[in-house]
């Protein structure tokens, strides 16, 4: 009959109206600043620099500038430091004196994170990046970009676990090699120890 569909539609909207008061689970709205949805693991915004233990000395970055060269938007700026520091394997590596990312240019493609051979640069999930000044406050420096490995574990648990596992294996391999080398040196040159 004519009008029957309209009445059924009206009943549906009224069910929504009453239901949204009775059952808050129906509401699609998340009251954002107070309530937040957990971030999706695959979400990515801008890159950050990973450090182990200490932000000053534990930065994984070796200032190899691969990310700087690969960045399609050319938003990374690196100046190498003259002083070296040991990496997680005990090898001496270069380190960046300046590491800037212009996040007003960064398009979040994640190529820097992909090409980094030192697991140093990773994609972050921060999204509240607005600032009242559009030049200097959107140019993030090394200190602002450096974040602990725990943060990486938190936002990308699977990827971080895989990275940590690989690095641990490499470290153990390096240590075993070192120990072997030390043992070999010990057996090869017993004389050098001298008489006791």
């Amino acid at each position, binding site marked *: *009959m*004519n*009008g029957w569909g*309209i009445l059924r*539609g*009206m009943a*549906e*909207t*009224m069910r*929504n*109206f009453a*239901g*949204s*008061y009775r059952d808050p689970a*129906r*509401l*699609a*709205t998340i*009251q954002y600043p107070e309530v937040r949805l957990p971030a999706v693991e695959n979400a990515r915004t801008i890159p950050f620099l990973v450090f182990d233990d200490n932000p000053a000395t534990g930065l994984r970055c070796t200032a190899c500038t691969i990310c700087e060269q690969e960045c399609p938007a050319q938003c990374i700026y690196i100046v190498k430091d003259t002083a070296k520091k040991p990496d997680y394997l005990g090898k001496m590596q270069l380190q960046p004196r300046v590491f800037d990312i212009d996040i007003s240019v960064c398009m979040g493609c994640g190529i820097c994170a992909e090409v980094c051979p030192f697991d140093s640069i990773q994609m972050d999930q921060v999204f509240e990046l607005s600032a009242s000044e559009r030049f200097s406050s959107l140019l993030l420096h090394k200190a602002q970009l450096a974040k602990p490995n725990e943060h990486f574990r938190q936002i990308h648990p699977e990827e971080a676990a895989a990275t940590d596992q690989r690095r641990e294996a490499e470290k153990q391999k390096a240590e075993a090699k070192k120990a072997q080398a030390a043992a070999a040196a010990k057996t090869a040159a017993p004389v050098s120890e001298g008489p006791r």
Partner: protein
Amino acid sequence: MNGFDQIFVTMAHRLSGAAPAPVQPIMLAALIIAALMTAFGSCFALTTIMERKILGRMQNRLGPNRVGPCGLLQPMADAVKMLIKEDLVPDAADRTLHALAPLVLTVPIWLAFAVLPFGRNMVAVNFDAGILFFFAIGGASELAVFMAGWSSQNKYSLIGAMRGIAQMISYEVPLVLSTVTALMMAGSLSLVAIVDAQSGYAFGWLARWHVFTPWGLAGFGLFLIAAAAESNRSPFDLPEGESEIIAGYLTEYSGFKYALFFLGEYLGLFAVTGLGVTLFLGGWQPPVKALAGTPSWFWFAAKFAALIFLFIWVRATLPRLRLDQLLNFSWRFLVPLGLVNLLAAAVWSWTRPWQFPGSMGVRWLIGGSILALFYCWLGRGLRPDARPARQYHYAA
């Protein structure tokens, strides 16, 4: 009982009585105008926020809830926003007409509230031809819509205005036809007399509102549909159709003029809703005899609010019509049904002397079956396959 019921009337007379005798009538008029403008102005503010909240709830959203307690101060924020926005007028526009259009829409519509009885003895002017005055005033909105569309020198504005004119003129006919039945029954064009005609109680308890008769029920339905179309409410919001023609005749309006248009549209809706309450829902009469002692203005306000809720509910439910559907619906369905409704009302009036037991049921049966028959018969013409499919020559 009477003290609380007549509280506004006595207040107005006391306040104006304080003035010197020669200016007392002017004082009284000014007081009534101030009261009406305050009441319906705040009603406008409240409706905008409630509409957004109710629409939100009907779409399983929360609606605005940030400004003030429960978001109730949102209209204030909107008003400030509207007032401080830049008032842009296109270079090619006819500046005089462009500026006049919102005024032509908003100013006359206030006059329509003068003839509506909001409670017992609560009518600003009791015209003998009140309803005629009401529709004459309502005619200004068509002019305003076309002024806005024409003066903007914008394709979308003009299309919106043309749609608006076609729609308003088409739906004015069923609107007036549906009110004619109520006029026939009351035998008067005065809205106060029409409310008085609905006084008394059937079976000793149920109010004799027009909506409780077959012709009144049909007339009320016709009236609501035509009223929604007259005030450009969804599903008849073609003149503004955002998805098709940006904002129709409002496209080139911004800031305060845009706000005035909004005010005018809502006031038009309030006026026509008030008329619907007066004609079919017994005006300020309580629904059952047991509530006869309650204040009359409360009942008007309650019915008014219920009808506004109904309009919001319909807006949340129905999609927009196409222009040919809109005009077909009016000319092929509403207008003939309105004419049939006159017949049903005449039958009801003619059978009024019947006093045998169960006469009410027989009268309902006769009137109801006439209307149901024509409802089904005319409804056949609205089916998508009722006419041969339209041939499009230029559009694929």
